[in-house]
């Protein structure tokens, strides 16, 4: 009953007319603009230390207050958007590319190639994500570059598994078999017919993955193994403010809110995209 199926198809409705896609895109766009125009928007230099205004609560001069070095929190939050957006983007792109290539090779060819990839994936997945990343960073030394290397080495498995599963389903789908029966070459079937359909779910996944990457990046900086001071980054700012929570709550609170909103933007975009493209996690 095609008619009833169309009607009973489940649609996730969000309150009002604002769809998650629009809301998520708006949040991300806002942060992107903030990051781009940081020099214009930030009232102060993010690393300038002014001993005269240490630990000031939010005021007209310093809307989000100042930290223990007298640096303006608002300016630091704005400048940090550049670093954290970069973390979310690069932390996703490298694993995405590696995982997609590995997953499609594994899924398309099957056999021993697939077996080897699956074993490697099993082993990498056996390690808790952050633990393996930390172990890698131990070797490469702290810093943003190390973070990206660790991210690429660890994060690709999720994409590889996802793409592989999609390939296995699509490879046996009627339309792929139709393509083979019409005499199309292997590469045409793989790149023109299977890949565009398979990659949709990874694109959606990459949006929710961006949330995890962002949180991981911030956590690693918080632990002191990522971005190094005095650079403004939300995770570091939270770490720096932790010692002052009893006296200066604003130092930790505002960078946290920044992370939550940016992450929410990615989550909403993932929900919206998944719904629009008919992909379910």
């Amino acid at each position, binding site marked *: *009953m*095609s*008619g*009833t199926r169309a*009607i*009973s198809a489940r649609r996730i409705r969000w309150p009002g007319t604002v769809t998650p896609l629009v809301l998520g895109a708006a949040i991300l766009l806002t942060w992107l603009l903030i990051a781009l125009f940081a020099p214009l928007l930030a009232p102060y230099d993010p690393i300038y230390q002014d001993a005269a205004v240490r630990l000031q609560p939010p005021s007209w001069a310093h809307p989000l207050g100042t930290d223990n070095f007298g640096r303006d929190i608002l300016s630091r939050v704005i400048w940090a958007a550049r670093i954290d957006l970069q973390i979310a983007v690069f932390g996703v792109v490298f694993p995405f590319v590696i995982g997609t290539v590995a997953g499609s090779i594994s899924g398309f060819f099957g056999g021993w190639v697939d077996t080897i990839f699956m074993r490697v994936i099993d082993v990498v997945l056996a390690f808790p994500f952050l633990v393996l990343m930390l172990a890698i960073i131990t070797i490469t030394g702290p810093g943003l570059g190390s973070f990206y290397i660790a991210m690429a080495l660890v994060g690709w498995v999720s994409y590889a598994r996802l793409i592989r599963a999609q390939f296995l389903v699509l490879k046996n789908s009627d339309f792929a078999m139709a393509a083979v029966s019409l005499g199309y070459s292997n590469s045409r079937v793989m790149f023109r017919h299977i890949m565009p359909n398979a990659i949709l779910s990874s694109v959606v996944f990459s949006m929710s993955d961006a949330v995890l990457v962002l949180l991981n990046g911030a956590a690693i900086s918080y632990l002191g193994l990522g971005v190094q001071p005095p650079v403004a980054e939300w995770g570091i700012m939270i770490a720096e403010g932790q010692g002052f929570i009893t006296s200066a709550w604003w130092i930790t609170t505002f960078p946290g809110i920044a992370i939550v909103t940016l992450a929410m933007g990615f989550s909403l975009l993932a929900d919206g995209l998944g719904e629009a493209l008919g992909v379910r996690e």
Partner: protein
Amino acid sequence: MTDAPILTVNNLSVAYEGGGTSHTIIDGVSFTLRRGEILGIVGESGSGKSMTCRALMRLLPSSRLRVTGGSVWLEDGRDVLSLSQGELTQVRGRRIGMIFQNPASHLDPVMSIGRQIAESIRHHRKIGRKEAWARMLDILRQVGIPDPESRANAYTHEFSGGMRQRAMIAVALACDPDILIADEPTTALDVTVQAQILRLLQQLRDERGLSIIFITHDLGVVYQLCDTVAVMYAGRLCEYGAMHEVIHRPRHHYTAGLVACQPGSEGGTGRVHTIPGQPPSPGDMPPGCRFHPRCGAADALCAARQPPLRETHEGHACACHHPVGIEAEAEA
């Protein structure tokens, strides 16, 4: 078959409401069911045959679907559509049982068949665990499941296709309902297994006086099983009457076309008769008679006015301005 109707559906309508618009999915469907009668509801995908039965069980699959009018009278004079939730649970399963096309998805995969049946029995009749279990075994035996003692502990996925359908019939009949609604129960089965299930339904009718509403797209199955038949097209009832009368002397052009479409008709060889075009979609119904764009006998009247369902003969009603075989009188 006795004359007193056990179920009377009167002018049942269902609408889909969403995105600011509302369109009618089921438009004024009426029929009656008598004790021991097997009524076939035939129609193609999207004709609303399934939806009609969901509506009268108040099991519409989406909150956007709403019954907009009509009534469903039980034998005791209650209207199913105005029952409270509590009363409804006493009607479903106890008075009206229901089986579906795909037993694999309509049975709980993580509960054994026996427990599902016993659960229904214990819910409707307040009896003990042991008694319910014994009764459950009895029902499994009645629907032809061999070795019920051990099969009762099996799960859905451990049954074959035909056995699953038998198990679902057992679940539906657990509380001895008067009416069984069968929503395309044999469509997914192989023909030899279909024949077994049709035979079983006939037996249940003969032995228990069960009344059955049998929904199908296959006129052949209707011919083999039913006493009366209702033909639906695009959400409306277009013909209704005694089965032999409707199939051998169809009055509605759609029914006539459908009978001629059967691959087994005309000796079963040569080109197949077809109905040109395709059924309309729910959001885009043609005005007047909904079949007129595909009908060879359509004229301006058909495009302008919806034909009412009228009795052409004793116990045979048809919604057509120009019924097959009845000439001028239709104009009146």
